[in-house]
């Protein structure tokens, strides 16, 4: 019999930590899908390295969420035994890898935010989150550098790489607004100094990301309409497929170890 989903008591802090953990797990899983398929061996390793950085972040965050929740859940249960509607990640991060340009654009848009976010979170009044931030910031800084270099080379590379990178920006731009969203749950944590107000990061993000995009001879879409829903469990059709693969072993053979 397939393992049933767990229930989670989503206090504000548990929910807040799970959202960031889900971001890291889902993007890390997407990057792991490139393993053995990247355009060149060197980039295969680079993508796997970034995926492993994110998986490490996810594990620390899930463990902390389990501690805060104080019930029988642990990092594995959070990852393997929640269904689509219980996942709280950004919609951007569950979007399929597509071609290499699309993966790099997704990474660039997110890492540009994550780097600012983790740097700011080093000052969190929550000591555990501040410690996780200090470690994650170094990783996200490298992810940003690596993806920025590729943005410029893809955008300012060949006609084909330019076309693919531009198509990815056009498609993914509408998912970037969600990174700066704040709901009532997070407002209280921001006021308590536990969380960072993502809106305060936006001016900086908007002063760096478009710079790289224009250096890459690419353009930002004019559209201001933004997708929402990931933080409250309303996902695109892609996350279910991702989770069915990610969770298949534990769902089919509950508690299996090897």
């Amino acid at each position, binding site marked *: 019999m397939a393992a049933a989903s767990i229930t989670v008591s989503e206090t504000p802090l548990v929910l807040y930590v799970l959202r960031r953990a889900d971001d890291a797990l889902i993007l890390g899983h997407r990057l792991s899908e490139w393993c053995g398929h990247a355009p*060149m*061996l*060197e*980039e295969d*390793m*680079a993508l796997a*390295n970034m995926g492993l950085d994110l998986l490490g972040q996810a594990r620390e965050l899930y463990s902390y969420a389990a501690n805060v929740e104080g019930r029988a859940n642990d990092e594995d249960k959070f990852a393997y035994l929640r269904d689509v509607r219980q996942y709280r990640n950004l919609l951007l991060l569950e979007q399929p890898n597509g071609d290499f340009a699309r993966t790099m654009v997704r990474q660039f848009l997110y890492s540009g935010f994550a780097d600012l976010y983790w740097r700011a979170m080093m000052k969190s009044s929550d000591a555990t989150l501040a410690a996780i931030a200090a470690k994650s910031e170094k990783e996200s800084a*490298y992810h940003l550098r690596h993806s920025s270099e590729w943005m410029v*080379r893809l955008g300012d590379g060949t006609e084909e790489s330019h076309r693919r990178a531009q198509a990815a920006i056009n498609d993914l731009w509408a998912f970037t607004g969600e990174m700066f969203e704040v709901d009532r749950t997070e407002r209280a944590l921001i006021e308590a100094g536990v969380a960072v107000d993502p809106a305060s990061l936006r001016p900086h993000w908007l002063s760096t990301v478009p710079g790289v995009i224009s250096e890459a001879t690419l353009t930002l879409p004019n559209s201001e309409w933004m997708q929402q829903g990931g933080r409250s469990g309303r996902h695109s059709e892609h996350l279910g497929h991702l989770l069915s693969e990610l969770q298949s072993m534990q769902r089919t053979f509950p508690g299996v170890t090897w």
Partner: protein
Amino acid sequence: MHTPNTPLWEVFIRSRNGLAHKHVGSLHAADATLALQAARDIYTRRGEGLSIWVVPSAAITASDPSEKGMMFEPAESKIYRHPTFYDVPEEVGHM
């Protein structure tokens, strides 16, 4: 493998302060910046290094293997050039 857009680079890693950079291998990359990042991702995953050099393989001038008799054999008979007749104090560390 023919990769006109991604030439070969030689990678050198310094594992600790005070040691020399050591050749660890090679990789393909489009330019020096990406070569440095690829070297980081491929050759320092297990904490092997504190510093990386990448050099275009084409920039290396190598000795000709067919000339190894002339190049290297004359040194083989000069054992007096080896510093094995001295005791090196431990405090000297790596030489």
